[in-house]
């Protein structure tokens, strides 16, 4: 199950680190870095069902919120 509730131990640090990682890179280099980062994180997660859910959510970030409104306890299925 994809975690969508707050889960970062140090959100501000992590965000700043992400931006800093791109420092001095051209746009193309940044895109390439992002792609590598996604692949590394995908491998860390591993579970295909979780990844597929994350991809759906990334494509349509509103989908889960809308769903949560109509279903009192939020989505149950993966």
């Amino acid at each position, binding site marked *: 199950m994809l975690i969508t509730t707050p889960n970062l131990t140090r959100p501000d640090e992590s965000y700043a680190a992400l931006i800093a990682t791109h420092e001095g890179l051209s746009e193309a280099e940044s*895109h*390439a870095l992002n*792609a*590598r980062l*996604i*692949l*590394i994180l995908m*491998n860390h997660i591993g579970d295909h069902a979780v990844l597929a859910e994350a991809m759906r959510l990334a494509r349509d970030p509103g989908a889960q919120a809308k769903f949560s409104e109509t279903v009192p306890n939020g989505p149950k299925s993966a």
Partner: protein
Amino acid sequence: MTALVPDRYTLAFRLYPYAKSPDQDAATPVRHGAVIVGGGPVGLAMALDLGRRGVPVLLLDDHEGAGLGSRALCFAKRTLEICDRLGAAGPMLEKGVQWNLGKVFHDDRLLYEFNLLPEGGHAFPAFINLQQPWFEKFLHDAIVQVRAEGAPIELRGKNRVDAVNVADDHVTLDILTPDGPYRLEADWLIACDGARSPVRGMLGLSFDGRVFEDNFLIADVKMKADFPTERWFWFEPHFKSGDSALLHKQPDDIWRIDFQLGWNIDRAKELEPENIRRRVDAMLGPDVEYELDWCSIYTFQCRRMEKFRHGRVLFAGDSAHQVSPFGARGANSGIQDVDNLGWKLALVLEGLAPESLLDSYDAERVHGADENILNSTRATDFITPKTPVSKLFRNAVLRLAEHLPFARTMVNSGRLSVPCTYDGSVLNGPDHPDMPARTRPGSVCPDAPLAGGWLLRQLGPGFRLLTIDSEAPEVLSAHGLTVPCLALAATPELTARYLGTAKGAVYLIRPDQHVAARWDRFDETAVAEALARAIGKV
């Protein structure tokens, strides 16, 4: 005279020269049981399979043998096992080149090496490299041999099928020969006439799928270079001979080289020898001497017919489904079609199984084709990314693969052909939870060493009962079939591959060596019922 049926391609081997048949002078069309159109690898294997089962079979081809040129090269273990059952594998193995090691490069960097490291305890290697004309020749040699022993196989060269008319219980064929036209009837027609299948066209059937917008230059070069017997694949090679490149060894000092050229090319110009040489020189370096043996440019597609059975007409091989060559699934899957269809058609012709058994050929092999199309589409998308973002991720995978083993699992330069499991087939009977998943009903039997031989060789042409540490009668007779039992004691391989944690195992095995059903003990009623199901009687 032969101008009436002109060659569309040059022959590597002239195998079945035209000879006039008495059928051509018959007052009314002669009726045959099974007629095959097309003598490529699939048609030849089909004729051999049916003929060995004693089914009279007639094969028609508009040429007189195996065509020259670079096509299939990698033949998979399962193909060799099937060819072994057909008595043709020995020479293939002897002539073919065996390889296990692959190297993947990006630009000028070696990203990683892989070893196919086939599991021990199998008679055949994971793959051999053998030129397609030789594969066809060895099938033909096996036909000649069994025909001498009485197998009812007839091959007619320079017999071009120009029209088919399908009735409910037979098919009429109009054939052109160097002596003019004649007409034949067939109870069953098997169309093995290749990707452009004229028979498919004559029936007005569609062949839908995807064309990949890319051209591949295939060059077979002859050289005495001492490159190792490995498969080398480059993404975006530093020598700039193409967007990707492949080097693979064949028998007779021939090497297969592929260059990915892109979509908008001038075909004729690219095929000029000096232009091919320019690419090959850049790849091999200036000091390597070689001759160009054969070159052609291909575009690739992945598509299939919606159904492989249309009443009395069955489609097999490239006529039914076409894949891009990444993963070597074309001829390899066509041979699995033959494996699946041969015994079913033989049982129907003998009146032992209902015609509806042939619908399971359609269901099972459509499933196989979809698996192959999925795999080769994914490989093609990785090798030739279709969008900028797809290329971005592809190159990110390659960049990581140099350092991180996890990324190597995503690198896809072709997932090599493995046999398909017919999960969910209507022919499947009961499973047993304590036995290994790899031998569940629908799976092809993995080979295993036995005292003095190999398991698959013991299975024979018909249904078999296989017992491991279990009691069963020597022969079971049911539904008009005689099923002999192969009784074995557990070995480490048999335990790992068949027994699992069960105390004993009883397997019902189909003539194509796929598992029909399995139990932990023999029960005559249960086995007879599974047999009925496996021949389409339930």
